[in-house]
């Protein structure tokens, strides 16, 4: 186990490098940060000066070499705009994103598994129909729509919750609710489908013949067999959240990595882009490793 983990870490490291190379060269093809950073009526001299200061005049390969050399010392460079180390900027934002992602995914996973399993157990009955339709609407409704309507209803009209921002625990309610909806719908559907299949297996009959209650039949015997695709989709959704929940961050003023990334991309703030990608990529790679471990834990047959 240990050595496979090691190999896995190593190969992840290689992909991380591939990722850096890709992002570094591709992003430099998308426009001149000087043109964006400086006001439109800034002179050519100022632009030159800006490029000079940030080393944007050198050949791209030289820039890349320098970047790698700095990286080796965990120096991600300065943000072109914020006059701060890019990594600091990113880590600050990433903490928020991580919190948001963790809380949301925990809630989503728990809720989707419970509701999806019960729906699968009651295929075609009202509970199933209701849960399916509701989750589908959730999964396909535009999230900003839900967010703004949520603010109008719960903050402006009912005055139960703050509109936006951070601070108290109440500030988290709306953003998490909005983030919750889509993955919940998606995962619920996957759980349901996978569970319907698994519930038809002979071992379910064995469990029932043993006199196991419906609860454990569903959640112990069947669920674990049905979890493989579910875990994959959970991973996908978690990755999406780790990459930043742009809409929610933008609307609710959450200082997460999603908005930071968008802004940096639109502003071509390369160092921040790269640092943000590195940080989220490491998080996603770790998560994927955890998922692969989870596969093996769940199903002894795929333990190599």
């Amino acid at each position, binding site marked *: 186990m240990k050595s496979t983990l090691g190999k896995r870490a190593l190969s992840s490291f290689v992909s991380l490098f591939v990722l850096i190379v890709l992002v570094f060269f591709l992003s430099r093809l998308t426009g001149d940060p000087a043109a964006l950073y400086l006001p439109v009526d800034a002179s050519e001299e100022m632009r030159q000066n800006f490029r000079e200061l940030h080393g944007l005049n050198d050949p791209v390969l030289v820039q890349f070499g320098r970047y790698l050399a700095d990286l080796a010392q965990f120096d991600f460079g300065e943000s072109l705009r914020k006059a701060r180390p890019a990594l600091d900027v990113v880590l600050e934002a990433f903490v928020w994103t991580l919190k948001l992602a963790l809380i949301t995914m925990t809630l989503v996973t728990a809720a989707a598994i419970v509701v999806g399993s019960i729906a699968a157990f009651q295929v075609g009955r009202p509970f199933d129909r209701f849960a399916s339709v509701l989750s589908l609407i959730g999964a396909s409704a535009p999230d900003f729509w839900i967010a703004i309507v949520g603010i109008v209803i719960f903050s402006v009209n009912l005055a139960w919750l703050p509109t936006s921002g951070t601070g108290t625990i109440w500030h988290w309610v709306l953003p998490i609710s909005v983030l919750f909806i889509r993955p919940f719908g998606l995962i619920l559907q996957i759980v349901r489908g996978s569970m319907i299949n698994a519930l*038809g*297996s*002979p*071992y379910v*009959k*064995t*469990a*029932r*013949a*043993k*006199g*196991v*209650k*419906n609860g*454990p039949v569903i959640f112990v*015997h069947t669920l*674990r*067999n049905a979890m493989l695709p579910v875990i994959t989709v959970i991973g996908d959704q978690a990755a999406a959240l780790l990459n930043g929940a742009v809409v929610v961050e933008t609307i609710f003023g959450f200082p997460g990595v999603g908005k930071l990334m968008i802004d940096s991309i639109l502003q071509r703030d390369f160092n921040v882009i790269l640092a943000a990608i590195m940080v989220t990529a490491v998080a996603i790679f770790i998560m994927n490793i955890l998922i692969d471990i989870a596969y093996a834990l*769940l*199903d*002894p*047959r795929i333990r190599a």
Partner: protein
Amino acid sequence: MAEHLLEVRDLSVRFHTTQGIVNAVNGISWHLDRGETLAILGESGSGKSVSASAIMNLIDMPPGEITSGQILFDGTDLLKASEEERRRLNGKRISMIFQDPLGHLNPVYPVGWQIAETAMAHGQSKAAAYERALKLMERVGIPNAKASMHKYPHQFSGGQRQRLMIAMALVLKPDILIADEPTTALDVTVQAEVLSLLEELQDETGMGLLLITHDLGVVAEAADRAVVMEGGRIVETGTPRDLYHNPQHPYTRKLLAAAPGRGEMRTAQSGGQPILEVHGLRKSYGELAALKGVDFDLIAGETLAVVGESGSGKSTIARLMLRLEEASGGTVKWKGEDILAKSPREMGKLRRQLQMVFQDPTQSLNPNMSVYEIISEAWVIHPDILPKPKWRARVGELLEQVGLKAEHALRYPHQFSGGQRQRIAIARALALEPDLIICDEAVSALDVSVQAQVIALLGDLRDRLGIAFIFIAHDLPVVRDFADRVLVMKQGEIVEQGPVRQIFDAPREHYTRRLLAAGLDADPDIQADRRRARAALETA
């Protein structure tokens, strides 16, 4: 009127399918008393398993439907009881051993937990449950029980899985045990042990045993009474002795007549170039050496039976020869070429010549494919065998040959009984017209009349087309009738091999002798004598 522990009255069950309604059980009635063993004998597909499932509330409704009847347990009608009441009975007061152990074990949990769960589901503490599980695993003869508790179903041999199922059913010492073909995959020695274990339990707890089997020997050995089923109806009831000596119904008579082990033994062909040479074949799973270097040959058109203890590596030989798993060492020469050294592509070409019928029929049939697709796939893969327009007719023909009906071609595997599935698997292997068929317990789930028919078919193919067989079986009478040579295995090694006459008439090894002594005879009187003889051998 006397109260029976369990009484089934006028039970009818039917299934809805695309091809219309299948009447699986038609108004059957029987009863079972405390401490009694009732055997249900019968044709494969006659509704034995379905009626047992009805007792356990395990029929999927719909598509299934119980159209009439009562199931009285301790005087209450189970069909009217609530789900919860039935759940509380299941496992604790009534428990069941399923016919097809691999599918019925949960693949993702360790077997120890699965056995202990029965107890835990009915309120026992974890420690007590595990202790009981361990004890039972030892009693059903799982080697190295303590460590095996943490293993998963796929790490056991077919017979071991079946014993695990048995252990699972016995955890709470139920009042009624429904055993659906509990010994089909067991070698005779273990079979005898299991039967005596059940008997002991019956003495201890007064358990009523419903024994579904097609093995007349088992009936003779264990049953107090027996009912015979055909086509969803009960055609005859009586004590084993009555049935054996004085069968009334033509089907019963046919069954008895078909009992194997009475024919002429074959004389092994001598000489001839071996088409298969196995040398030093080894396989280990981690610590466990499942196969410790076996050597044997096979001549074209010859039938080599592999018998031996459950878990001794019989299926492993088959899996290694077919490259379903990689061997740890040794060579397998097929017509002079080493199979084990072939690339996957070369192997693909060879495969047509080597076929296998798997031990677990349910799992080896793709649930998404109809029987027609399953059988005709052979010709899709090897189009030169048969032109497409002839497929339909040929599928029908093959199904008839293995005792099924041509119209079954449109059904899906889950709509068949255990024995029927096994026959589909046989038909699939035959479709390829191979040179060698490895039959891993291929006829063990068939009632003797069908078994006889299938064996006759295989014999005919052997004689007409020169197909060779490796016949893995624990059913010695069948082996005796069918094999040319026999290979006896124990703990991953061949302990004895030779022509069938030699093995059956003059066994050299103690193990072989024990094996032969443990064989069951359909005649209850002979069986009674054997028991005495076995007891003597045991003490010797």
